[in-house]
């Protein structure tokens, strides 16, 4: 079952198409990372899913409800934390938690206490006196204390130091068992460590959305060594991204790597290659090559 599903979802601001015909499915229990460069439409997508913005076209379902009809019943099962959320800064951490408690039938007092303790939040201090990282932690604690079925995090790590980031990720992983998590982030290195699914958004369009394991498996950095400069195959395969060539070295990224067929395909394309290496890529390298190739194509 999919907790989030969009059909041709689009959102425009006057003449700017922030999100275009987005078809996205996020399965229950997954940790879905929505990544992409700045201005890709990640925040707009999330705001549209959360009924903060109304879609210009298409539709989205969240927890089985049309996103435009999300109301108190659904929001009592959703935890939403955003980097640019405006919190009631005059409240102390303690009052903030006790203020929110009556809104949620499933609020877990012991769990809330535990969250405050583990996230090391100063209970008596006002939110306005807290650092940005601490405020995010307070927002996260307030969003986890009722065991939400869906946790949506919009750039929660932006601008945070690595220690706070680690604490947040740890809190998220330890305390969200069973929940579906949707997270948008620039921090690919962190995302890689805990996401089960990933979607890549660029220019408002979803380039792909798949399981992390399959993504890691289908991307390889290919490096070929030659005795003399090789002739490049024409036409150049679309799945081979960002070729760079020096006198005796050719590098590119294969976005459709298959352990059975790719070695043969390379040998056929470059019969003069003296050595071939096919290396797994970190997520960051995959997205850099994707972003470069998209910009080049544009």
């Amino acid at each position, binding site marked *: 079952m999919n907790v989030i599903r969009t059909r041709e979802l689009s959102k425009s601001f006057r003449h700017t198409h922030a999100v275009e015909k987005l078809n996205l499915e996020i399965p229950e229990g997954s940790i879905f990372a929505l990544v992409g460069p700045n201005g890709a439409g990640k925040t707009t997508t999330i705001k549209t899913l959360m*009924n903060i913005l109304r879609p210009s076209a298409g539709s989205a379902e969240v927890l089985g409800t049309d996103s435009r009809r999300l109301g108190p019943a659904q929001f009592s099962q959703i935890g939403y934390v955003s980097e640019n959320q405006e919190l009631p800064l005059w409240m102390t951490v303690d009052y903030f938690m006790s*203020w929110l408690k009556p*809104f949620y039938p499933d609020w877990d007092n012991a769990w809330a206490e535990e969250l405050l303790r583990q996230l090391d939040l100063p209970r008596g201090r006002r939110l306005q006196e807290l650092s940005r990282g601490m405020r995010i932690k307070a927002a996260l604690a307030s969003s986890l204390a009722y065991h939400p079925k869906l946790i*949506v995090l919009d750039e929660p790590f932006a601008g945070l130091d690595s220690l706070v980031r680690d604490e947040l990720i740890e809190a998220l992983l330890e305390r969200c068992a069973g929940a579906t998590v949707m997270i948008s982030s620039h921090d690919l290195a962190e995302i890689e460590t805990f996401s089960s699914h990933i979607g890549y958004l660029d220019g408002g369009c979803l380039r792909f959305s798949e399981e992390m394991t399959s993504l890691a498996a289908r991307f390889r950095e290919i490096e070929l060594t030659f005795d003399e400069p090789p002739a490049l195959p024409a036409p150049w395969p679309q799945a081979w991204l960002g070729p760079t060539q020096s006198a005796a070295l050719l590098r590119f990224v294969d976005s459709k790597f298959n352990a059975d067929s790719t070695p043969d395909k390379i040998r056929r394309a470059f019969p003069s290659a003296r050595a071939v290496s096919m290396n797994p890529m970190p997520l960051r390298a995959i997205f850099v090559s994707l972003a470069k190739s998209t910009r080049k194509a544009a």
Partner: protein
Amino acid sequence: MRQTWHIFLKDARRLRYEIIVILALTAAYAWLQGHWSPLSSLQARRLNQMAGMVRVFLLPLAWWYLTSQAVYGEPLPGDRQFRVTRPYRWTSLLGAKLLFVATFVNFPLLLADCFIVTRQGFHPWASPGGIIWHQVAVSAVFFLPMIAAACITTSFAQLILAGLTIIVSLIVLTALLGPGGDAVGINLEGGWVHGLLTCLILLSAAVAIMILQYRTRRTWVSRMIFVAALLLVLCSGRLLPWDTAYALQSRLLKPRIDTSPITAVFSPGSGPPPTGSPAPQNAVRVSLPIRLYGVPSGTTAVVDAMRAELTLPDGNPLKTLLFFGETPPDTVWHDMLVERSLFEQVKGTPVRLHLTIRLTVLGNPQTEDVPLGGGQYHVPGVGLCEFDPWGPGRAALSCRTPFRQPAYVLARFDRFDKEVPSEQQRVDYSPYPAEFGISPISDTSWLAPAGATTVAFTTMQPLAHIRRELDIPNVQLAEFAN
């Protein structure tokens, strides 16, 4: 309801200092207004000035601030508010804000009303309709539009900026559009209909904005509604011409008397017209005498307004609209100012005259004689009256009453040195048990002529508002020029 209460308590906690200030200001207002005096002594004048300052400036500003701050606890415009993805019920949120205003603005004002009315010599529960209506009216005209304005802004600074922009725009628009048609002034008879229209526009817009914003947060649509409402208020004079306003007033008052015998007759044989202000040099004053017949005994017919339409020989109409509201003398004179060149052209030629006359039939007269002197007099139906001689040959008679003055009061001052008494009258045909305004005391001042020894107050009730048409085919203007 639990959520409403929860949000209300949070707002009360957050704005506790502001609430203390508002309560202190309301208490100060109640004390000052409670000690308000019509007398012209220096101390009374100072006290009245302070009461006026608190009532007109400080209290409305403080209400505005507190109301806005309550709404800004959960701002509505924008998409960054943390609450939009929390399980708030919009009805609870709106209910909490209304409850907040009712508790910290309306209720203290209600207590202040009771204190002021009691302090001014009346019993607050003698007019329960007045007390309730006063709260309803103040809420409709002040508080709900204040909440609506806060619903479409994000901060008090933005609200003030928007307010200033609106004021400047209204001034420019008024200058461009000119006066609002033949609108009846709010203080004239029938003017209350325009007041009602203005209130209904403001109230409808405020309710629509609140529901729209709290339910769907369609800020731009709400802002458009707000601007449209202001434009409608500005143009209400054009939207509701005087004749429609009077027609509406007639419909709202069910006639309690047979008015069919009442006729209006053009009476060329009447004596000379009363001396009026001289006509401008390029115009001629034409006074048309009208008499009323068939007025039932025990009642009086008052001409509220009259429109004359002259059809000139070239077929062009010349329209004049006049408002009267005077005690009916034998003859009512419709004064027209006709351009001198035009008058010279048509003065000897018979022209067609059509008159539309709006009348109010008054009945159930009650008269009370009051000697003018020191002390206070309780005049039934008029209120508590106090005589204040504030200079040689000059004196004022001030009467105050809770919530509203009677529909019609005629004050007739008898003078030992003159045979003809001096008469002044006040008219307010509005059907409401309270007038619009912050103070629960309605005050009327009468200028007592020199030498006056007694005043006879006559109060009457409106029994019917009627309209009469009068068509006169041949009138020679030269006969009525003066």
